[in-house]
């Protein structure tokens, strides 16, 4: 079919016409031949049947009276018909009664099997059987065979004629169609030529010439119309093209600008990436070089993703043994069973960034205490946990040890306190006895004792008094912090004047309260002890003819700094610490009656209130004792203090 489609219209038309012609003729020829041959056959059968019937009629008597000669003679009549080559009469017993052969036909044709009636075409013969009926009874059969070759010859001749006719009419059809096809093909070809000119030369002004008003004419009209439109469009297109060029230029410019911007953006991004990379590198260096162990695990699954060398060292495992494992392998089983993971997650929710103390287990099964600081990070769109572990086993041990020591110390201290109290309290009773006894002796035996005896007895009494003071001091000291008094608001101005009254001042010494003192919340007796001890010391050791003692108070950040200054002998700097120790006095006992406990008690009280005590001194010029009291712990309404001061 495609071959037909690619042919020139001219050839197509001729071919179609020829095909139609030839097909028609061949069909007609075939029908004619077959019809003719069938008619011929029918005729032949009819003919031969008639002959056979005639023979049958004529042979009746011969057969009835068994006269074969006569039958043979009857059969001889067939000579007239050249096509019949064989004839035979059969008796009803199916025996050949008489035969007839034409010319040499005896050689070729043999009598056929008996058959009552009918006909058949075979072996190039038409065989016809006809019964011989005498008075309604079949008494035999006639068989005639006719040669078909004449028929075939005629058929052949007819076919030859038809072929000749076919050839001739095809030739005529060809000649006519090759002339007549022009009627159709020429306008189309001219149209094709026009189309070719248009497509090759792009000349849309070309027009096809119309020749008639048939379909091709309409087509030409339509094409001419189309060409006109195309021509119009072409002009429009040229215009549009020019506009487009301008637009393209504009667009190109825009694109160039955009490109530049993009390049800049890329540069910026590269810088950012570079810095990011550096940050990453830094992080990496920190990560790798950190002294603390760092584990990174998937926040969802808890699978370890990364760890640093310190981490490997901490748990005693290689990196390959850790990555891909669940983080629970880091912790002792009891921690996991105890819901470590759960607490760990809780920890994330509530205490992210805080330090958690837990335990880890090494590959060898060693359990270590660690402080963990965990944080939730996002790396490449994936949530990860980063845990920084610090081995605090040593610290933990130290802490434990410290706590134990502290407890021991506390116990020892308590025992000592009790001991001091018990000792001082229990020693006082016999001492009182000794003193009473000594008084009795000096009273009762005053006349019997000589001077030296009295002198020695006085010495005994004074030594017992000193002993008593010592024990009192110790008792006081031990009471500090042990026996609690009621906390009261104490106006120190009032308290100072009270203390000054209590200290028996010699004529040559003056005590001056330089500034207003605050009201504080405290155990009144203790604070009184502080002021009493310090003032009495200042008075006791005064070596100048005109003694001046000043009490001052300065409010500093969060505390009050009290000062008690004198112009006494002063203290060497090397004794600054020593004087606060128990039973330490700088001068001999006999010179100044002193227990060596006072300052110790003062120090203890001040420190009990969270304050400090120290001194400044110049030898020969005097000393100033400073102590501080915390405003936070002891402060009361400063308003009151001020108003009281004003009034």
């Amino acid at each position, binding site marked *: 079919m495609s071959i037909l489609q690619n042919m020139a219209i001219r050839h197509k038309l001729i071919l179609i016409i020829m095909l139609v012609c030839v097909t028609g003729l061949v069909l007609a020829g075939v029908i004619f031949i077959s019809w003719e041959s069938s008619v011929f056959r029918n005729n032949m059968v009819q003919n031969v049947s008639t002959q056979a019937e005639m023979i049958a009629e004529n042979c*009746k*008597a011969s057969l009835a009276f068994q006269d074969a000669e006569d039958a043979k003679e009857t059969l001889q009549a067939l000579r007239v018909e050249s096509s019949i080559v064989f004839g035979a009469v059969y008796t009803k017993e199916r025996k050949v009664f008489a035969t007839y052969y034409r010319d040499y036909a005896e050689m070729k044709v043999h009598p056929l099997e008996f058959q009552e009636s009918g006909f058949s075409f075979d072996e190039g013969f038409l065989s016809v059987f006809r019964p011989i009926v005498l008075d309604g009874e079949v008494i035999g059969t006639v068989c005639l065979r006719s040669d078909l070759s004449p028929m075939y010859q005629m058929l052949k001749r007819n076919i030859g004629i038809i072929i000749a006719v076919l050839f001739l009419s095809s030739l005529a059809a060809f000649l006519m169609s090759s002339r007549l096809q022009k009627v159709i093909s020429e306008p189309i070809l001219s149209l094709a030529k026009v189309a070719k000119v248009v497509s090759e030369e792009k000349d849309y002004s070309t027009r096809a010439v119309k020749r008639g008003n048939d379909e091709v004419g309409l087509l030409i009209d339509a094409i001419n119309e189309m060409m006109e439109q195309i021509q119009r469009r072409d002009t429009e297109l040229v215009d549009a093209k020019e506009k487009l060029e301008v637009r393209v230029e504009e667009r190109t410019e825009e694109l160039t600008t955009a490109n530049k911007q993009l390049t800049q953006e890329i540069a910026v991004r590269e810088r950012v990436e570079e810095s990011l990379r550096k940050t990453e590198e830094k992080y990496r260096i920190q990560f790798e070089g950190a002294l603390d162990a760092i584990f990174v695990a998937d926040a969802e699954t808890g699978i370890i993703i990364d760890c640093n060398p310190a981490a490997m060292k901490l748990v005693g495992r290689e990196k390959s043994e850790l990555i891909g494992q669940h983080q629970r392998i880091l912790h002792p089983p009891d921690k996991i069973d105890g819901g470590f993971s759960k607490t760990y997650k809780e920890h994330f929710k509530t205490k992210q960034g805080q330090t958690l103390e837990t335990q880890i287990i090494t590959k060898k099964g060693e359990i270590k205490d660690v402080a963990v600081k965990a944080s939730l990070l996002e790396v490449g769109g994936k949530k990860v946990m980063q845990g920084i572990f610090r081995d605090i086993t040593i610290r933990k041990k130290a802490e434990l040890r410290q706590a134990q020591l502290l407890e021991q110390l506390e116990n020892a201290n308590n025992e000592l306190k009790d001991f001091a109290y018990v000792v001082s309290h229990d020693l006082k009773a016999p001492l009182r006895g000794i003193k009473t006894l000594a008084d009795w002796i000096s009273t009762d035996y005053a006349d019997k004792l000589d001077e030296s005896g009295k002198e020695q007895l006085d010495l005994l009494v004074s030594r017992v008094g000193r002993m008593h003071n010592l024990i009192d001091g110790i008792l006081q000291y031990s009471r500090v912090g042990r026996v609690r008094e009621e906390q009261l608001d104490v106006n120190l101005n009032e308290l100072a004047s009270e203390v000054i009254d209590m200290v028996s001042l010699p004529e040559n010494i003056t005590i001056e309260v330089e500034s207003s003192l605050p009201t504080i919340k405290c155990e009144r007796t203790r604070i009184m002890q502080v002021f009493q001890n310090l003032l009495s010391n200042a008075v006791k050791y005064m070596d100048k003819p005109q003694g001046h003692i000043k009490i001052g108070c300065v409010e500093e950040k969060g505390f009050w700094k009290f000062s008690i200054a004198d112009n006494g002998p002063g203290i060497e700097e090397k004794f600054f610490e020593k004087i606060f120790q128990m039973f330490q006095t700088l001068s001999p006992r006999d010179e100044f009656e002193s227990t060596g406990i006072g300052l110790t008690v003062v120090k203890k009280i001040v420190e009990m209130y969270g304050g400090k005590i120290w001194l400044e001194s110049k030898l020969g010029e005097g000393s100033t004792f400073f102590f501080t009291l915390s405003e936070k712990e002891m402060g009361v309404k400063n308003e009151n203090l001020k108003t009281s001061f004003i009034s």
Partner: protein
Amino acid sequence: MRIKVYKLIVLALVLFIAAIAPKAWASSAASSEYEVKAAFLYNFIKFVDWPGEETADSSEPISIAIIGKDPFGKAFKPIEDKLIKDRKVVVERFKGLEELEKSGAKDKSEQHPQIDAIRKCHLLFICRSEEEKLEETINLVKGHSVLTVADTEGFLESGGIINFLIEKKKVRFEISVAAAKDAKLKVRSQLLRLAKRIVGEKQSDEAKN
């Protein structure tokens, strides 16, 4: 050895057949002649037209009368039941004319029932036993449409219509057209053509040789 035995058996068979065959043939030849003749009689009826035959009652049988000493024996047996021209065929046997005359009225009258019957029949076969009374017998049916047949020499000359004769061991016949015409019988040409001799018609004579 085997071949010899086989050959012997074949030989014995051949001898046996040779011993029996002639007898069988002889008897069949004798009877077959009259069988053929009987069949011919039937066929003659088919090729001869009787006057008024078309209008005749088909229930009435066609009768064949055999006069004289019957030589047919059982020759009619195989064809007895056949219809000819759609009618039954009846074979009646009569004694010779001499005996008839003896038994019946002698005065040639037509009163004799047997003779009446003879005259009414379609075909009358006159046996050889009646050779001497041939003409008389023929005359007996003169004026009636009776096809007279015999196998006696000079039958046609005596006025008979068809006479059998043997030619080359085959049964043939001769016909007297004139006698047939007298009996108002129409003999068909097909039958005439087969006749060995035709009396009373020139043309037929010439046609045959």
